[in-house]
């Protein structure tokens, strides 16, 4: 790459908008047709959350957020990096910042979590140990006991957040997340079958969870398919499947021996206790394969949100995109569930919270993944601080927070007239 290829930053919002036309108010368009040389260009959008109902005739300039860089008015929605060679990448500035902040938060909380426990380790010591410079005792505790747990928390959170974002985008409905439409229950049914009927090892339980989740995913997809998949049908079929599978799980529990039942209940709540490298590696592998697949289809997924017909007309291979994304999301959910049990509501809340932070319409895949990781690590830290290590499974806390959030969401949706 020579110097010419380096993207040069230039803002267009500061330039007089071309064409010489006076542009009234803050609603004026950020870029004009006349220019086209800038490497970094931005679109403005009114920053305040959009008002529901009849909107004011024009978003006033005063309503724009102040102080967002050089733009002066309005916040920059996206920046474009262009090379002389004709390549261009468009980045949503706010979404990137949100993703970066969440990643930082998740990693920092991860380090804090490593220092948390019966043998507390300070933040600096934890970092030093992670870098391979700790005492022998610290080294053992961090690398063998606590690091795998933190990694599992990060990966499970990210996988669930990403899968949730994909599902919600496909279903065009916040309720279309894997824990609402039965995939969590499906994985649980698979795992319970292994625990209760076969008294299997933890690896076999994980395999059962993946298999159960996959079968549920395929069954729901097949049942909801009618000349393509529609959001509401997917949600409704999924809720039906979730109810049936919950019944199956309840039945399996009553058939179980006491020891198995106790193990099953802990598994069902979703726990990060006692996780070691055996859980980390398979999860890491799944994420390493599927995250790029999902991100690679992100643009097509975004187009799908315009409706099938529009997406088709714009050259998206609709059914293929949907199948690939659905399969990837089901696998991510199943792998996460296999590692930590059905941790409740992370998949539901992460994409919604991420969306509210980015204020961006798209599926917000990466921010949702970062949010999921940050949420789960923070929740695990919270349960350990409040109740001591391994007293309370993390799923209880996420369930309580997520359930509250779900109720709030339903009320908000009802107010907006959508439920």
């Amino acid at each position, binding site marked *: 790459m020579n110097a010419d290829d380096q993207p040069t930053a230039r803002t267009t919002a500061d330039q007089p908008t071309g064409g010489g036309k006076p*542009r*009234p108010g*803050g*609603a*004026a*368009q*950020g*870029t*004009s*047709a006349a220019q*086209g*040389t800038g490497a970094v*260009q931005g*679109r*403005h*959008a*009114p920053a305040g959350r*959009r*008002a529901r109902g009849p*909107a004011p005739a*024009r*978003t006033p300039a005063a309503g724009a957020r102040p102080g967002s860089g050089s733009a002066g008015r*309005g916040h920059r*929605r*996206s920046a*474009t990096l*262009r090379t002389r060679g*004709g*390549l*261009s*990448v*468009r980045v949503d500035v706010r979404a990137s910042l949100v993703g970066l902040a969440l990643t930082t938060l998740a990693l920092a909380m991860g380090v804090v979590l490593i220092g948390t426990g019966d043998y507390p380790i300070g933040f600096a010591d934890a970092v030093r140990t992670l870098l391979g410079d700790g005492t022998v005792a610290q080294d053992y505790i961090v690398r063998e006991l606590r690091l795998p747990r933190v990694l599992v928390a990060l990966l499970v959170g990210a996988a669930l957040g990403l899968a949730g974002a994909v599902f919600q985008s496909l279903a*065009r409905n916040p309720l279309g997340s894997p824990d609402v439409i039965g995939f969590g229950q499906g994985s649980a049914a698979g795992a319970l079958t292994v625990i209760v009927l076969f008294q299997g090892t933890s690896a076999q339980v994980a395999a059962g969870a993946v298999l159960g989740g996959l079968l549920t995913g395929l069954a729901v997809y097949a049942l909801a398919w009618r*000349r393509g998949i529609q959001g509401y049908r997917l949600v409704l079929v999924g809720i039906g499947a979730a109810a049936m599978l919950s019944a199956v799980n309840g039945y399996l529990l009553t058939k179980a021996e006491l020891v198995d039942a106790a193990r099953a209940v802990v598994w069902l709540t979703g726990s990060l206790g006692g996780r070691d490298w055996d859980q980390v590696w398979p999860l890491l592998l799944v994420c390493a394969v599927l995250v790029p697949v999902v991100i*690679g289809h992100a*643009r097509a997924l*975004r*187009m799908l*949100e*315009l*409706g099938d*017909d*529009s997406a*088709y*007309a*714009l*050259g*998206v*291979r609709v059914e293929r995109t949907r199948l690939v994304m659905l399969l990837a999301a089901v696998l991510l959910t199943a792998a996460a569930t296999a590692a930590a049990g059905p941790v409740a509501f992370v998949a539901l809340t992460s994409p919604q919270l991420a969306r509210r932070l980015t*204020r*961006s*319409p*798209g599926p917000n895949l990466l921010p949702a993944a970062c949010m999921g990781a940050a949420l789960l690590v923070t929740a695990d830290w919270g349960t350990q601080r409040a109740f001591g290590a391994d007293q309370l499974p993390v799923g209880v806390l996420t369930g309580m927070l997520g359930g509250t959030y779900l109720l709030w969401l339903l009320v908000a949706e009802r107010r907006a007239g959508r439920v």
Partner: protein
Amino acid sequence: MRGGGGARAPGEPGGPGRAASTGTDDDKDTETTVASSSASPVAPDARQRLTGQDLTLAYDRRTVAEHLSVSIPDHSFTVVVGPNACGKSTLLRALSRMLKPTAGSVLLDGQAISSLPAKKVARTLGLLPQSSIAPDGITVADLVARGRYPHQGLLRQWSETDERIVDESMAATGVAELADRFVDELSGGQRQRVWIAMAIAQQTPLLLLDEPTTYLDIQHQIDVLDLCAELHEEQGRTLVAVLHDLNHAARYATHLIAMRDGEIVAEGEPGEIVTAELVERVFGLRCQVIEDPESGTPLVIPAARRPRRQATAVPEPATGTKDAQAPERVAAGEPTPGR
């Protein structure tokens, strides 16, 4: 209203102001020249860019059309009309590869459309579907920008051309001033303009529109149709629209296709094919056809309601107006001698 108007005619709401302007005469001229130059073949013509050959169209088990052949004259503004469930939207869906024909094939530039890569087709053939969904919280500019998808790739996400064309498309449809507004705050007419802007940004030489005027009130219907006529005349695009209103179709189309029960009953220039018999045959509607005083195109006047017992009688109102002015007019219902 339509937020500033851009390149559009003065923003008088409603027909009278607009219709009285000189633009109408231009429309008329262009229409006649286009019609005479590309005198439309009734038989399918494989030389045109978009043709359907021997199509059988069906949803699940319900067959909508059989052995349907059609060709869209290049650079025409083709309008498909017909009663509900006659298969006009189905035909449009087939032409836009949204519906796979059970038999026969749709050819785009001589190749079966189903065998072409999706993005390649999307660079040649655009479609404005009947229903589209604007994602929550998307701005007008963002939505229009999505029309550039078939021209983009993973590493070519937003070129300067993309940006220029999006701006031009918004200007052409008069939504440039709404660029930063959220789509779901807009009125129905504005929203339809935004969707059209998105379709324009796709920059396809062929553009199909499935009932673009549905759910709009009359001034926005005319507004959208004027916009289509502009796209057709100024940019030389081939437009194919399904319309419900026969008079709109007759006024704006350069090539009219009338369908009934999955068959093409007649096609050609509206002035030549729109007659009372045709309307009766296609829609089962008794009417008379006069000359539209604004555009000179055929204007369909449905027969006045009359008491049921007289419904089969010889249409007497026709004789009253016959002497008045319009020589083209044909008495309703009954076959006219000489035709």
